[in-house]
C-alpha cells in the first residue's frame, strides 16, 4: 500500500469513529426515550466550550473533559425532568421544545463567550508516520479511545444487569414497567448519559475543529444522517450508519470532490427515509 492509500484508510476510520462518537448521544436519547433531541449539537458545543473555559483558566485538558461530561450531565437532568418528561408521548412537542432549548443554549454560549471563533489548543499536535503515511497523533489517539470506548459500552450493554434493564425498557416499555423496572428513572439516566456523551464528544473534538456558538448545527445534521441510515436505537445500527455515511462521504469526496461527497450523503439519506424509513438495523 502506498502512503496515500494508507492516509485514505486512516481518514476513513477516523471519520467513521467520529461520526459514531457524535451520533451516540442522539442515538441513546432517541432509542430509549423516542425523543429527537434537537439540542444535541448544542450539548456538543457546550463540551467544546468547557475545554475552552478550562484552557482560559490555565488548567490541564483533563479537567476540561471532566467539566464537559459533568456539566452537560448536570444540565441534562433538569432538562429531562422538566422539559422532556412532561412532553413524553408527544414527539412533535418534544421536537419543538428541544429546538427551543437549542436556541437558548446557543444564545447563552454567545452571551458568555461571544460570537467569535475560539481556539482550543492541541497539546498533541505532532504527526506520526504509519505505514509510510504521516498522520496527526491526536487523531490516532482519538481513534483508539473511541474504539475502546465503544467496545466497553457494547459489552456493558449486552452483559450487565443495568444493560439488560435498559434493553428491556427499549424493547417493551409497558412490560418492563410491569416487571418492576423504574422506566422513568431509566429514561432519565438515558437522557443524562446521552447529553453527557455529546459533551464528551465536544470536548474530545475541540482541539481539532472550529469552535463557535453555531458549531452544533453541523453535528446535529451528521448525527441525524447516521441514525437515518443505521436505524434508531441500537449500537450496531449506530456503527452501521456511521460506516455507511462516513465511508460514502470520504470515498466519494476523494474520487470526485467535496460537493459530490455531500450530494452522495444526502441522496443516501433521502433514499433510506423513502425506502427503508426504519434504517438498516431497526429497533422494531
Amino acid at each position, binding site marked *: 500500500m502506498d502512503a496515500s492509500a494508507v492516509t485514505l484508510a486512516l481518514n476513513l476510520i477516523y471519520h467513521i469513529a467520529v461520526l459514531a462518537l457524535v451520533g451516540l448521544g442522539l442515538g441513546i436519547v432517541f432509542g430509549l426515550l423516542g425523543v429527537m433531541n434537537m439540542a444535541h449539537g448544542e450539548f456538543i458545543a457546550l463540551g467544546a466550550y468547557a475545554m475552552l473555559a478550562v484552557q482560559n483558566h490555565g488548567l490541564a485538558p483533563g479537567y476540561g473533559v471532566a467539566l464537559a461530561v459533568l456539566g452537560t450531565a448536570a444540565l441534562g437532568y433538569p432538562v429531562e425532568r422538566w422539559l422532556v418528561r412532561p412532553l413524553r408521548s408527544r414527539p412533535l412537542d418534544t421536537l419543538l421544545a428541544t429546538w427551543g432549548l437549542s436556541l437558548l443554549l446557543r444564545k447563552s454560549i454567545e452571551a458568555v463567550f461571544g460570537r*467569535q*471563533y475560539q*481556539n482550543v489548543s492541541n497539546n498533541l499536535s505532532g504527526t506520526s508516520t504509519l505505514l509510510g503515511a504521516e498522520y496527526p497523533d491526536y487523531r490516532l489517539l482519538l481513534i483508539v479511545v473511541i474504539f475502546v470506548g465503544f467496545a466497553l459500552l457494547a459489552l456493558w450493554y449486552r452483559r450487565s444487569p443495568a444493560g439488560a434493564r435498559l434493553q428491556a425498557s427499549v424493547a417493551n416499555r409497558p412490560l418492563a414497567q410491569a416487571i418492576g423496572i423504574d422506566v422513568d428513572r431509566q429514561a432519565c439516566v438515558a437522557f443524562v448519559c446521552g447529553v453527557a456523551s455529546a459533551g464528551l464528544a465536544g470536548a474530545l473534538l475541540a482541539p*481539532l475543529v472550529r469552535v463557535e456558538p453555531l458549531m452544533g448545527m453541523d453535528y446535529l445534521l451528521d448525527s441525524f444522517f447516521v441514525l437515518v441510515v443505521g436505524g434508531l436505537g441500537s449500537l450496531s445500527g449506530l456503527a452501521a450508519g456511521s460506516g455507511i455515511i462516513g465511508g460514502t462521504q470520504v470515498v466519494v469526496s476523494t474520487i470526485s*470532490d*467535496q460537493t459530490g461527497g455531500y450530494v452522495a450523503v444526502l441522496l443516501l439519506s433521502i433514499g433510506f427515509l423513502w425506502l427503508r424509513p426504519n434504517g438498516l438495523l431497526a429497533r422494531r
Partner: protein
Amino acid sequence: MKRRSLIQKSLAIGSMASTGLLSHRQLFAAGPVKVGVMIPMSGPAGLFGPSAKNCAELAVAEINARGGLAGSPIEMIVSDAGVPPAEASQAALKLWKGQKVQAFIGMHDSAVRGALVGVFKGQVPYIYTSTYEGGECSAGTQVLAETPAQQLEPVIPWISKERKLKKWYLIGNDYNWPRDTNAMAKKYIAAAGGSIVGEEYLPFTTDNFDASLAKIKATGAEAVLITLVGGASVGFNRAFASFGLSDTVTRLGTLIEENTLAGIGAQNAANLYSSSGYFAAIDTPAAIDFAKRYTARFGAQAPPLNALAQSVYDGFLLLEAMANKARSMDPQKLEAAAKGVSFSSPRGQTTMQDRHGKKDIYLARADGSGFKVVQVFKQVGAGKNC
C-alpha cells in the same frame, strides 16, 4: 421648588449633552443627515456586526465633531444586512423612502449589493465597503471594497519570489467571490512563472477537509491560495496544520482577518499570510491612533478590529470627503464629487478612480498571537471594473 427646578434643569442639560443633542444645536444650523448603515447583525457574517457597528459609531462621532456632512450632523440608522437580499432591500427601501435616509454605507455580501443597487437605481448615494470580486460599476455606487486585482496582483509576484513558490493549489467556497478571485489569480500566477496544480470549490456545509488535504499533499503544492470564508477557513486551516503541512506549504488568504486567525489558533498558523487593505496590526501613526481611539471609546473588551469592520469607518470618511467637496447632500452633486476625491484614513491615502478606491495593500504574516505586516504595496488600483 427652586431647588427642584434646578435639579430638573441640570438633569435635562445633562441628558442632552450625553445624547449629543446639545453639541449638535451649538454646532449645526441645519437638521441632521440620516445615513443608513447596512451591516450583518445576524447570519454567518453576523460575527462582524458588533465591531462594524462600533466603527460606524466612532466615525459618526468624529465626523460630527469636525462639522458633519456639508454642515449637517450625521444621524446613523443601522439595519441588518445579514438577511436574504430581498429582505435587506426591503429594509433599505423603508429607510430611504420612510425615514428619509440620504446616503447608504453597506458592508455585506454581493447578493445583497446587487439587490440594493437594483432598489437605489443611482437615486441615492451608496458606498459599498467589504472585500468583493470586482465588477460593480452602477451609477450612484462607490466601492471601497478590495478587489482580487488589489489583493493579489502585487502580492503573488512578491510572495512567489520571496518564498520561491511555483506550484499553487487554489481552494475556496463554492460561490462567485472565490471563483472570480481565482480566475484573476491564475493570470497573476502564470505571469509570475508559477503553475496551478489543483483547484477546488467546497460547499459551505463542508466540515471535513481530509480529501482536499490529501490532494494538496499528492500534488506537491508549494502554496495554497485560500478563499474559504469564516468557519470553513478556520476548520480547513486547523486540519491543514494538524497534518503537518504548515511547515512545508505556504498559505495565502484574501479574507483571513483577525477573528478567523483567532479561530485558527497561533499554533496552526505557521507560514500563513493574509493580504488585505487593513489589519489591526498596521503600525503607521494613523492606524495606531485609530486603534487607540477605538479602545478608548469601546473598552479593552470590545470586539477586535478587523478589515471588514474598519471598512465601514472608511465608508463614512469617503462620504464626508464627497459631501464636503460637493457642499451638498444632493445625489447628483455627490456623484460628481466622488470622481477623483481623496481622503486619508487608518489605511493610508485612498483616491477614487472608476468608482473604486486606489489604496495601499498590506501583506501580513501570522506571527505568534496576531498578524505582522511584512510588506506594504503602495497605491494599488482596483483593476478594470467598468
